[in-house]
């Protein structure tokens, strides 16, 4: 199902959630600024951004804890912007979990169902189903303080799923877990979302988490959307310098287009360096551009490559960071245009490091490795 799932690319698909030019201000500060966004049924959608970018405000508006100052929020065809949270078919899993400390695990999960005054047997059956789904069997009578962090997280998840919400909101759901448990839980969440088919909207500041779980990611900055795209596109084709720098590590090289033709772009960078990059319809000669290069797309060598006239910069190794799976080389460029980072996979164990501190090196790359940015 995940393979061909791309309703956002289908012009006939109707979104489940639609933000229409939504603005929200707090005491004069604009948290969300005329933001429009469509989320489709069955999507695992991530809101990603630095703290204070407005992602949590957006989620809280969807939950009903905040009302938009301007614009509309639609769920299906209804405008839910002013509907109180207790009347929305949307449930939220809180960052702090917000488990009711005086209620048992079973009573916490049943809380929402009891508000609907469902028959007792229905509630009990649904609670049992959720306990199994979230692997909480045997913990029915426990109180939240008698649970481990991971168990609490699963109770919060079960409680928010109990009413079969149309949209499940997850506010930094894994932030309180340690790294290993967090990674396991990310895959569990994906699996769960896939099985239930419920639309999940997750808020996170952890880009790895967003890229792991989500079909699409909305990168937010200062109350606006910087880019909305699937993880791969976001990484390989960032829309701006800011997105390129926010998602993963990136090397940015400024330059001016000398020639733009269907075979490619020729760019002159600082210090008279020449770059060649894949062509694009939107480029024309004389334009100021920035090349974005991912560290893993750079080759690093102690000998000057054969074709050193293009896409090649010289420098001296300034720093080496051994990270286990990869090593990072920070290279001080000879042209004085700054620092670049190259990463090399540590393919063989105990291999001799051929490149050392202060070595003279050349960094080179293929023309299609660079993304040309104008913003």
């Amino acid at each position: 199902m995940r393979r061909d799932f791309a309703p956002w690319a289908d012009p006939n698909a109707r979104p489940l959630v639609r933000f229409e030019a939504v603005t929200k201000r707090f005491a004069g500060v604009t948290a969300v600024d005329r933001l429009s966004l469509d989320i489709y049924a069955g999507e695992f959608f991530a809101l990603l951004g630095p703290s204070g970018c407005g992602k949590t405000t957006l989620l809280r508006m969807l939950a009903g804890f905040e009302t938009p100052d301007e614009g509309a929020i639609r769920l299906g065809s209804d405008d839910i912007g002013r509907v109180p949270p207790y009347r929305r078919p949307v449930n939220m899993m809180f960052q702090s979990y917000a488990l009711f400390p005086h209620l048992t695990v079973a009573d916490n999960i049943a809380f929402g169902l009891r508000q609907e005054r469902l028959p007792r047997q229905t509630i009990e059956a649904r609670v049992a189903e959720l306990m199994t789904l979230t692997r909480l069997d045997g913990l029915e009578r426990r109180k939240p303080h008698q649970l481990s962090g991971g168990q609490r997280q699963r109770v919060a998840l079960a409680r928010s799923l109990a009413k079969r919400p149309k949209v499940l909101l997850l506010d930094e759901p894994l932030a309180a877990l340690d790294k290993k448990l967090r990674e396991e839980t990310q895959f569990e969440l994906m699996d769960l979302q896939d099985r239930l088919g419920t639309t999940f909207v997750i808020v996170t500041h952890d880009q790895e988490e967003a890229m792991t779980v989500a079909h699409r990611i909305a990168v937010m900055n200062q109350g606006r959307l910087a880019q909305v795209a699937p993880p791969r596109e976001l990484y390989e084709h960032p829309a701006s310098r800011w997105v390129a720098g926010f998602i993963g590590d990136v090397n940015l090289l400024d330059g001016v287009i000398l020639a733009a033709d269907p075979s490619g772009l020729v760019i002159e960078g600082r210090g008279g360096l020449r770059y060649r990059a894949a062509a694009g319809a939107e480029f024309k000669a004389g334009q100021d551009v920035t090349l974005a290069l991912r560290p893993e797309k750079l080759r690093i060598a102690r000998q000057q490559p054969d074709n050193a006239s293009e896409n090649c910069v010289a420098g001296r190794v300034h720093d080496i960071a051994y990270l286990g799976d990869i090593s990072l080389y920070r290279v001080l460029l000879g042209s004085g245009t700054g620092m670049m980072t190259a990463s090399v996979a540590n393919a063989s164990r105990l291999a001799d490091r051929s490149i050392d501190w202060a070595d003279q090196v050349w960094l080179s790359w293929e023309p299609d490795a660079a993304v040309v940015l104008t913003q």
Partner: protein
Amino acid sequence: MNPGTTTLGGFGARLVVWLPYAWLVVFFLVPFLIVLKISLSQTAIALPPYVPVLDPSAGWDGIRTFLAGLGLDNYATLFSDEIYGLSYLKSLKIAAVSTAILLAIGYPLAYGMARAPRRLQSMLVMLVILPFWTSFLIRVYAWINILQSDGLLNRVLQVLHLIDAPVAWLASDTAIYIGIVYSYLPFMVLPLYATLEKMDFTLLEAAADLGARPAAAFWRITVPLSLPGIAAGALLCFIPITGEFVIPDLLGGSDSLMIGQTLWTEFFANKDWPVASAIAVVLLILLVGPILVYQHLQMRNVEAGG
């Protein structure tokens, strides 16, 4: 580890544990036993005004005569004359009704304080305890001024044309309730505020998210979580109000008395120390009940982890 330190630490730890017990023995148990002994004695025109008095110089005979002189006559008096029973009932009734009124006024106050902006909260707490800066007696006397027939309350009500003639507020149960509720409000508000202030208000968002209207969220989340505060506030008010003497004496009427007044009368007017002591002992037994309830709630709260 140095064994010397361990021994010293053990001694220090034991001292810390035993000190409160020693305090209770000297300042609670011993006086209580004295009162209990007096309650079993007979009144007499003597100094002290009761018999028997233990005469240690008479040896075993003295102890035997002393024990033979003790009896339950005073407790029988408490049950034979209905004035005592009525006094107890009136005290318990006034304490119960006052506590209910205090809870009804104090809970919204404490809730509002707990939800006020952080920087305002310490000032609000300050305002609640501000009346303690003035003597309790002066504040109760001030109420006499406010409640008398040409006092502030009647004049304001007349100006507003809510009443035609002055109302006799003083010397009534209404005046007692006004005085008690006014005086005890901080004792209700502070423990309630302390529990509500610790409450995570995200829980109310979670309840709303799960479909609970504000009223349902209040009854199912806020009230259960503030139960320790409710219990503490209610007991801090109920117990001293039951034995209250000054407020009913200054503001209340003379037709029926609270138990504190009856005790005072027996002790000072009638010079009947034994009956007064018996009244005190029975009052204590009556109040042990609610204290045990409180203890039970506290234990449950500790077990619940917070």
